[in-house]
């Protein structure tokens, strides 16, 4: 029987609001139950910091069940930590060992400025969606839902990229800080479905242009994004977006 609790050393990125650069600060995480999630471990550390009249570590989080996309930090160099297809809130401490030192940093990308500590501004992702990540339909005159049969394979294929939670781990993982996986996921979902075809060319051109404008880098096929995506979204979606992009250029 292994012990149920572990003790850890954390090196956490601390950066005040408006500070141009932060620093790694060391603190202890004592008596951490292995059943805790990573964020619950930070909660425990923050409770202690508060009791010691120090400022707790700022970090984004909300649903804590891996679906809202709000949480995320680079843990020992890997976005959302080392477990595959796992958000930080679903990373459990049973995957760490007693005595470990854990380095925790915010997403690093020019398009994601740090607000405070581990909190970054990801509104650039909203701006990319505003550039066309939707089907232009007003509320009202939709026909009966079953009037448009969609082959199950197509619907299932569209669902795969639709599972993107918009957390930004793909950007943080990419050496170029590219948002190609994020954009590719939305472009793929909508271009696979017949409802999305009328705007397909305009959508892909506009979203890619916006991504470039916002300071995200380009894709150089490192595939780091795919390795770190908590929803297991594959670079196939980038390939499909590229095809849509060329089609849009040459049509």
């Amino acid at each position, binding site marked *: 029987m292994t012990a149920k609790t572990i003790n850890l050393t954390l090196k956490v990125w601390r950066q005040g*609001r408006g500070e141009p650069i932060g620093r790694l600060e060391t603190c202890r995480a004592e008596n951490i139950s292995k059943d805790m999630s990573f964020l619950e471990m930070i909660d425990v550390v923050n409770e202690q910091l508060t009791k010691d*009249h120090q400022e707790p570590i700022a970090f984004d989080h909300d649903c804590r069940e891996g679906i809202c996309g709000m949480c995320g930090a680079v843990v020992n160099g890997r976005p959302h930590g080392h477990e595959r297809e796992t958000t930080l809130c679903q990373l459990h401490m049973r995957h760490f060992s007693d005595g470990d030192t854990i380095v925790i940093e915010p997403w690093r990308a020019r398009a994601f400025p740090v*607000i405070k500590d581990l909190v970054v501004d990801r509104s650039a992702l909203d701006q990319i969606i*505003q550039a066309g990540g*939707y089907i232009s339909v007003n*509320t009202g005159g939709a026909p009966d839902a079953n009037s448009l049969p969609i082959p*199950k394979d197509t*619907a299932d294929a569209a*669902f795969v990229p639709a599972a993107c939670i918009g957390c930004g781990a793909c950007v943080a993982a990419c050496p170029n800080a590219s948002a190609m996986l994020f954009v590719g996921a939305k472009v793929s979902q909508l271009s696979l479905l017949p409802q999305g075809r009328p705007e397909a060319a305009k959508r892909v051109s506009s979203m890619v242009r916006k991504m470039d404008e916002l300071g995200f880098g380009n894709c150089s096929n490192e595939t780091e994004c795919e390795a770190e995506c908590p929803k297991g979204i594959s670079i196939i979606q980038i390939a499909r977006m590229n095809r849509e992009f060329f089609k849009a250029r040459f049509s």
Partner: protein
Amino acid sequence: MKPDVTSDLTIDPKLDAKIPAGPLAEKWDRHRFDIKLVNPANKKKFEIIVVGTGLAGASAAASLAELGYPVKNFCIQDSPRRAHSIAAQGGINAAKNYANDGDSIRRLFYDTVKGGDFRAREANVYRLAQLSNHIIDHCVSQGIPFARDYGGFLDNRSFGGAQVSRTFYAKGQTGQQLLLGAYGALMRQVAGGMVTLFQRREMMELVVEDGRARGIVTRNLITGEMETHTAHAVVLATGGYGNVFYLSTNAMASNVTAAFRAYKSGAYFANPCFTQIHPTCIPVHGTFQSKLTLMSESLRNDGRVWVPKKPGDNRKPKDIPESERDYYLEAKYPSFGNLVPRDVASRNAKDQCDMDKGVGETRLAVYLDFADAIKRHGEGAIAGKYGNLFQMYEKITGENPYQTPMMIYPAVHYTMGGLWVDYNLMSTIPGLFVLGEANFSDHGANRLGASALMQGLADGYFVIPYTIGGYLAGASFGKTHTGSEAFKTAVNVAEQRVQKLMQVNGRRTVADFHRTLGGILWDHCGMARNEEGLTKAKGMVANLRKEFWEDVYVPGNAADFNQSLENAGRVADFLEFGELMIDDALARRESCGCHFNTAFQTEDNEALRDDENFCHVAAWEYAGDERSPLFHKEPLTFENVALTQRSYK
């Protein structure tokens, strides 16, 4: 002093539900015709504030903007796509009858009214059932990848409280897909300049001027600044208050603050004690735990609920032979079996654990077993239906549900109570509309599964775009500006509250108080209640609130990104709101749906309603910090369904 809740003197003229005349099926149609319209050219002159970007908020903001109203939309997260609707798993109901199994608008209406234990308004629920079909049509046109069968048509599954298959779904991520559809529509309106988005903002105060809702005060969560916004109407879509219990399936930021501030500004709060405790959640496993995780009710389609027959049985599930297992739901409710409504399933799980037949380390859990379904359909088919849920379960618990039964226990999930609204979804403050979980309107004393997504989207896409026009066209507005007395006072109140929180400088953390409050309410105002416990809890909450204001410690400073301060403000409101819940539970001297007062039960231990004295909505009016809230009631009349003892046997 206790309010006399049975006297007719408590009926308040403000609580006119404005239910249209005419037969049930024609009410909404007639009403749409009778509502005044706003000239298309004039719509741009009416500014609308929408607080919240979940299913109700995002769909409302997008639809209102499509009509030509300039909209300001606010959310507490970094992006509107994070709203907690995103976490809804199982599905969305609609009366399409695609399964040809006898469904109809009337049946969906009936199931919902009955499921709510006859404590919802007939007219609202019927409208909801009518609109349900339009929602599915619209969402498909938005590109939402609903599950389909091999012919390419939409697939359905069953949910609790219904004997037809009417739930549309997108694997276990239906809420996510529906929310991203509404978010897409919202982003389109942001791009078109009709919606201005304000992220990382928390509503601190509602501004009421000349008796009308005219704006809000928000705190910028990055800078700490108080900001003011004017409007001609304010729409709250700020979700439920389940986090008053500390542990719930809600997201960490879900709170009652916006609704509670509106209550303190004069909006009545309806049925605050109606809280849904969802039967299938991952059990609690430690005091450090920050939240509970729901396992979709859809699992009860294929999972069988059981406990050992013998109390105190410590054997592993695989060592307990079939003959020594008690499939208590199937035995007790043969016609609905594992698919009884949520309140019934939760209460039965609690009863089993109270008899010491609970399982697992804490003995506060029951099994949800898929072995039979896996044997019958194969592991692949089960993985196809519930793959992501099984994966989530394994991540959290470290156990493989394909091999060993899941352990589940009830957890706080949804709040049927909320701000009182009339048929137009307007509160008792003219110009303040409330949508989705934040209002009380459609689910009575218990919500059926897959009905929350339906209600949020019906309110946002198909109700508010009509009814807000009726209000705007019929009202005469004076000029207001953010420098007016009403705005200055509201800003002042918000700033003072923040200062007060920062100045207590005590010894206990905010989370510590929140955890204590949650424990009190879970024990005494949870799955079972009684007068003694509630009375005791009322005193405990009052004491805790006093201690909070003497001994809380909020680190950092107010003019900064300060999550401790955000939480402190929310917990301060929960500490007041908790007492309102208890008052409401004390006043409702019957059992109905989720509200199970142990003094009122049938011989079979089911909820025993008192239709003669309690067939009403309880609506509470704020009367000042030092005074008890005033009780009002809106009587409920049922002309189209017979009030029966709910039976799922």
